[in-house]
Every structure is written in C-alpha cells, then in structure tokens.
C-alpha cells in the first residue's frame, strides 16, 4: 500500500495529466540534452587532451633554469639587501651538461621513458635552393618511445637512422618545396660552418604545415658534431605511462636535477583554461534547459496548490499537520524529478548512441570521423541529481505556500 502523502501526491498529478506530462517532458528533455551535450563535451575534451598528450612530450627538460642562480653572497645573507654589480657569466657551450647522468637517473623511475635531443638551426640546400630548418638530433632507437613521429611516416622509417648515421628524415612539405624524394642526398649547413651531406631515409606528414616544412631529424651524435656541441643535449623528452602524473613528476625532476622541467599541462596552460571556460559555458547552457523545466514543475505544483486550497483546508481541519501538507507537494516535485530522470536517462543514452553514428569530415582530415562521445556513469548521476534538485527546488515554494494555508480563511469563503 502506497503511503498517505505519496498517495495524495500521485492522485493530484494524475488528476492533471496533461499539465503533468508537459512539465515531465521538460525534465525528460533537459536530462537527455544534458547527457548528450555533456558526453559530446567530455568526448571532445578527452579527444583534444589525448591528441595533445600523444603528440607532445609529457615533460620537457630544458637547458635552462627557472630562476637565475643566486650569487654566493646572496645565499649567505638571504634576508639582507645585497646588490652585486658587473656580473659577467662564464662563456660556455649551451646545453644540458652531463645529460647521460640525468638519463641514468630518469631510467630508474618506473613508468617513465626519456630520450635526449639536440636541436639547432641549419640550412638545407638542394638544386640551388636554401631553406632554413630546425635540425633535431635524436637517438633513433629511443625516439619511438617518446614521440609519435613514427606514426606520421609516409615513406621510409625512423629505424633507417640507426642503420645509416648519415640518414635524415624530413617533412613532406619541405620535400615538396625543394622537390626532394626519398633516397636523395641533401647538404646541411650549420651556423658553425660545418657542411654535411645526408641521405633522405624517411618522409613524414603530420598535417601541421609549419612543422612539415621546417623540422628535420638526424642521429644525435651526428647533430652534436655538426653543431659543435659534443656531449650536449638541449632538451630531454619524457613520456609517462600515466600522463596525469606529469605535473608532479616535472616538479620532482626539476628539484632533483635543477633544469627547468615543463609538464604538458604547464606548456598548455592557456588551452587548459580555455577548455575549462568552454565547459563552464556549455554546462551553464545545458543546465538552463533543466532550470526552464523546473519552472514548468513550479507552474504545475503552484496550480495544484491554488486549485486545492479547499482540499488543503479540509485536510488541515481533519488534523493533517503543516508538514504533512508540505510533504505532499514536495513529493509531487520529487515524483516529477524521478520520472523525468527515469525517462530522460535512457532517452539521453539513445541520443548519445545516435550521435555516435554521426560522421563528419573535419578540416584537415581526409576521412569522415565519428563525433567524439565519451560517457561515464557520473554523467548519468549528475544529470539525475540535477533534475531531482531542480524539481525539488521548484516544488519548495508552492509546498511552503500550501503548508501555510489557514483552514478558517478558506472555509469561511467556501461556505
């Protein structure tokens, strides 16, 4: 047997089927759109971060320090106002000193892969054309662990660099610009005046025009020799099994080795804050749907309270307490919220499945791709909780009004 207050609440709602259905459909649509849009937002964010995480180092150790070194006198008197003039730093070869020691240290960390790189400016010459490029020296056997360059190879392979230390890999944009093909030889000139001839052993295409036209890859030892920076690397690229540990790990590395270590989150701080702003805007818009639906519930329950003044007066004269009356109308809100969630959740799941079937050709992609949809149980829980909260809030005012009805005022007028 259904309880007394829920029983009365159900009867009230069933007596106004059309109004109840309209307000119910508001909640159902609100919950469904909340789910569909949030899954799309979550999906696009996950997709964006996945691309960001996959295509960039999780941590980059650079050949500089976050803060300039303190002079010994400043370290000795940290609280004193010290001014040291005419400091002239020593001239030295730039780069991470003793990077093999750092590499050995990093390799002891579980779930971490690292590889040194040395990048410098160079000029690539072919058939009378010269193009300025960034020459990246890397260890071919390790590069696949820390970059995704091998995923973008359209001709040759990264492994060729191991077999041929005079090999070079360049982007298809640069190859097109200089009319180069796989297997051809090109001359590279560095600012140190060194000239060396390399054989093209691989071509890549990332889809980012600037990158494809300016980046070339060669063996680290060869690049160190060309740039006259023996035993130097200017970056160490780190990849982690769990990219979300990057921020903490970067702090640890910087604390241990001193060199500036930038996590992917720090490097993309502006993008991450843009994502947060985008989420706030979208969730606000979607929540507005549920808030509008809550007004529908408020309208229905207010109407019931208005129409049922006489019944409320009778119930109170019979001995029902104010809180019994309040409960009846709050239950109506809860019932509408529950029913709205119960119908809205599967409807929202259906909408998500429908959206998963949609394929669009995005700019820069050659094939139509599915919309990125990402759904998790918390989204369902949030949608249901929000719907329940909105319905309950919408019922609160009419319920309070109903509870405050004075039976005598109504009965005098009804006689």
């Amino acid at each position, binding site marked *: 047997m259904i309880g*007394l207050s829920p029983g009365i609440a159900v009867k009230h709602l069933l007596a106004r089927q059309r109004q109840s259905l309209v307000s119910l459909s508001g909640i159902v649509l609100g919950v469904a759109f909340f789910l569909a849009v949030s899954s799309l937002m979550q999906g696009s964010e996950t997709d964006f971060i996945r691309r960001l995480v996959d295509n960039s180092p999780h941590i980059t150790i650079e050949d500089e320090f976050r803060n300039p070194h303190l002079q010994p006198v400043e370290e000795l008197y940290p609280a004193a106002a010290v001014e040291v003039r005419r400091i002239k730093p020593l001239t030295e070869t730039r780069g991470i000193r003793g990077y093999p020691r750092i590499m050995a240290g990093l390799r002891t960390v579980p779930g971490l892969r690292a590889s040194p790189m040395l990048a410098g400016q160079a000029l690539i010459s072919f058939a009378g054309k010269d193009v300025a490029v960034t020459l990246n020296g890397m260890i071919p056997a390790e590069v696949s662990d820390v970059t995704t360059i091998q995923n973008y190879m359209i001709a040759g392979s990264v492994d060729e660099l191991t077999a041929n230390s005079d090999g070079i890999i360049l982007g298809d944009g640069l190859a097109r610009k200089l009319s180069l093909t796989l297997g051809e030889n090109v001359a590279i000139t560095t600012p140190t005046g060194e000239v060396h001839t390399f054989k093209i052993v691989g071509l890549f295409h990332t889809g980012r025009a600037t990158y494809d036209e300016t980046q070339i890859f060669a063996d680290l030892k060869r690049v160190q020799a060309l740039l006259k920076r023996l035993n130097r690397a200017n970056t160490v690229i780190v990849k982690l099994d769990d990219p979300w540990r990057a921020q903490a790990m970067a702090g640890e590395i910087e604390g241990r080795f001193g060199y500036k270590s930038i996590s992917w989150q720090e490097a993309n701080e502006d993008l991450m804050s843009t994502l947060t702003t985008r989420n706030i805007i979208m969730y606000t818009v979607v929540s507005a749907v549920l808030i509008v639906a809550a007004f529908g519930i408020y309208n229905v329950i207010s109407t019931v309270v208005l129409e049922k003044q006489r019944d409320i007066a009778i119930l109170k004269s*019979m001995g029902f307490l*104010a809180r019994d009356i309040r409960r009846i109308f709050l239950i109506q809100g809860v019932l509408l919220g529950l029913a709205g969630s119960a119908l809205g959740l599967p409807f929202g799941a259906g909408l998500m499945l429908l959206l998963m079937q949609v394929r669009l050709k995005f700019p820069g992609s050659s094939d139509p791709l599915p919309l990125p949809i990402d759904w998790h149980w918390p989204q369902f829980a949030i949608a249901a909780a929000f719907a329940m909260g909105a319905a309950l809030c919408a019922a609160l005012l009419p319920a309070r009004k109903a509870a405050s009805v004075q*039976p005598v005022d109504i009965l005098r007028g009804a*006689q």
Partner: protein
Amino acid sequence: MTEPVIEAEGLTRQLPGEFTVTLVDDASLAVHEGEFVAITGASGSGKSSLLYLLGLLDRPTKGHIWLRGKDAAALDEDALAELRLGELGFVFQFHFLLPEFTALENVMLPMRRLGRLRQSEIEARAIELLASLDLAGEGNKLPKQLSGGQSQRVAIARALANDPLLILADEPTGNLDTAASANVQNILRDLAHRHGRAVIVVTHDRDFAAAADRVIEMSDARIVRGGRQGAS
C-alpha cells in the same frame, strides 16, 4: 454531572485592522457527552466563527476552551492538529470530499493519518461506517458519482472515522433536499443519543434546531440564549 466534552469561557474573536471586527463576543458554553446542541442565529451573527473556535481551527482573541479538561490555549499548532485528528469530527455545508479519492478512501484518510490501526482494520472500519450510513456498495464511487445526500453521509462517515468525542457540523443540511436533510438530521441526533457523542450543529433551519436537546441562539456575535448557565 460528568465533565463536559467541551467547555468555553469568555470566548472572543476579533479581526484586527483599522476597524476591529468582532466575530464572537464573550461566549461561554459547555457541551456534554450524548448532548445534541444546535447553534442558531441570523446570518453574520457569529455561529460559524464560534464553531471554528470550538473546533480548534481558529484561536480566540480572549477566553479559553477546554477539551476534556485540556486547555487548548496552551497547545501549539501541531498539538491542536493532533487533537482535531483524534477527538473532533467536522461536517460542513458542502461535503468537501477529496474529488480524486473514492468514498471509501475519503473515509479512510483520517484513520490513515492517525495511524493507530492496520491497513486492513482501517479498510474494514471504513466499510462498516459507510454501511451504517446506508452507503454499502458506494465505497468505490468517486464523489462526483454520488448524490448530494450520499456525499454528505460520506462526509459524516469521514468525521466519525477516528471515533471522535465531539462532532461539529456547520449547516450540514444547507445543500440538501428535504428528505436528505431529515436523514442527516436523524444520523446526527442518533450519534448523540445512541452513541453518546457530543454533537454541535450550526443551523439556520428552525425544524433542525427544534430537534436538538438545546439551542444556543446568537445575535451580533453574542450568545443571547442557551449558553452556559449564568453566562447569558
């Protein structure tokens, strides 16, 4: 003599405002078990207002009401509601049945709220009450499917649901034809005389009033006849 079921002393009810309106002025009365009392008077004389005060639906500006010796002035709203639920039964001019509920469900409502009986006992008692008022077989009908007289009898059954000490009726035959009026009148009189309940009926029907054990007459918010001995 036994303790009165309800006793009122110096009841006054005024509506505050720029011009104070006095609804009931210094009314004193006592009603005992098995007594059938009619309150009469012209329209606006304060009959219904006095009934609402006696029914603990309104609070007096001055004066006291004792229900079985318990001072109502000392009780908060919730306690008054509990008293109404257990000790009082109301019948109004219009039946005021809840339209979404069947006759049986309407009668069951006060019992379910009180919660002293099990569901099966509540249902059995409601059926018994309806049968005692010649409504056997009408229990599953909605109020709109019942005649005026039948609806008013359902309202009486609802008022009797929790076996109250005192039944208060406000013009219970005002909307009924002669036959139905006579029926309701007999039921209320029987409740007092055969079942020992105190019954107070507000009526402007002289025949109805003539059937009562005592008539309290009101005029200009005051009891002018039949109130507590020595009070008027």
